[in-house]
């Protein structure tokens, strides 16, 4: 029995089963067309920069190069940490304070305290007027300072005109100066 529908289906199936010859240069032509297509984001400098930044790259580094990079990082870290001292207070906040000591027999006196790293060489006192009067002026910002006088390089004296430091841990006497806003002490 003849069935026209089956005949049509058979012919379509035979047609589809035929091998298809594809031009070997097709892949190349397709890729060239894709490359030639305009990219999203336009061709502006910003777009190019953005694409350049997002394009993955493989970095190759020798161990020596790695050490060099690490050394550079260490230098940056060290430079950052060099600033561990308290930032210098604004000059506008500092007030000049005069320290005075009567010491007739002293040959040299230094003012040492929290404001000069307890460095006996940094703030020498000078005779003022009479031979017995020693004085020096130091700019100070608001805060609470420990200090003392070092007489002739060996004898510690507290300031008789200032409160004694109760939180002194070292036996040698110290005094306390409190500087408030406006320079009150």
């Amino acid at each position, binding site marked *: 029995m003849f069935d026209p529908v089956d005949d049509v289906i058979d012919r379509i199936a035979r047609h589809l089963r035929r091998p298809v010859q594809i031009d070997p240069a097709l892949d190349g032509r397709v890729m060239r067309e894709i490359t030639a297509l305009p990219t999203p984001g336009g061709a502006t400098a910003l777009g190019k920069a953005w694409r350049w930044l997002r394009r993955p790259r493989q*970095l*190759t*580094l*020798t*161990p020596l190069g*790695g*050490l060099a*990079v*690490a*050394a550079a*990082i*260490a230098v940056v*870290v*060290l430079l950052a*940490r060099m600033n*561990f*001292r*308290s930032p210098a207070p604004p000059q506008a906040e500092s007030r000049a304070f005069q320290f005075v000591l009567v010491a007739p027999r002293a040959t040299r006196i230094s003012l*040492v305290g*929290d404001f000069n*790293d*307890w*460095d*006996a060489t940094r703030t020498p006192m000078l005779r003022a007027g009479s031979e017995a009067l020693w004085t020096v002026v130091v700019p100070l910002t*608001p*805060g*609470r300072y*420990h200090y003392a006088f*070092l007489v002739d390089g060996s004898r*510690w004296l507290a300031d008789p005109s200032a*409160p*004694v*430091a*109760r*939180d002194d*841990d*070292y*036996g*040698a006497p*110290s005094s*306390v100066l*409190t500087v*408030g*806003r*406006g320079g*009150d*002490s």
Partner: protein
Amino acid sequence: MTHALIRTALPLLAATLVAGRAAAQQTDPRLERLDAATRPTVAALIDSARTALLPTEPLVQRALEGATKRAAGDVIVAAVRRLAVDLGHARDALGSTASPAELSAGAAALRAGAAQTTLTELRQARRGLLVVPLAVLADLVASGVPVDSAAAAVLALAGRARDADLIEFRRAVERDIALGAPPAAATAAAVTAADVFVNAGARQQRPGRP
């Protein structure tokens, strides 16, 4: 690819760790004034304080004070450690927003014997910096005023008195003590006088009426 990454990344990571550790151990050059045995311990204490976000400059100064006064190394270490603990307690009492100067003054007040609750009450009673009230509290105790009397006096004045008023109050107490008054009585009298003075100042600052 993986081997290349390992060959590159491992030395880089190791070198970075070594460099970072070296940087972390970089000590304040001022600590060179300490002897070689004391310096690492003090530096470690200061690093710990820095990690805990406490001010480190007071600790450096305390160590330098010890070096200049030629204190023994263990005494310096103990002093720095004790100050670090006091700074931590002061921050607990004053809050994390306290300035380094406030923490330093707070540590002195605690060292003088003030309670942490007193510091917290001061923070609540006074707007602005607490350096002077805390320092006055510590100084009064150093002058012989009982800590409870000193705390009560400073708390009574802290809400309204200016820094200058508080310092004048401290001077008045010290003057009366020097003249022979018992410290507690001198404090009470000075509080009364300062309170009157502060109130008078407040009246003067009221706007005038037509």
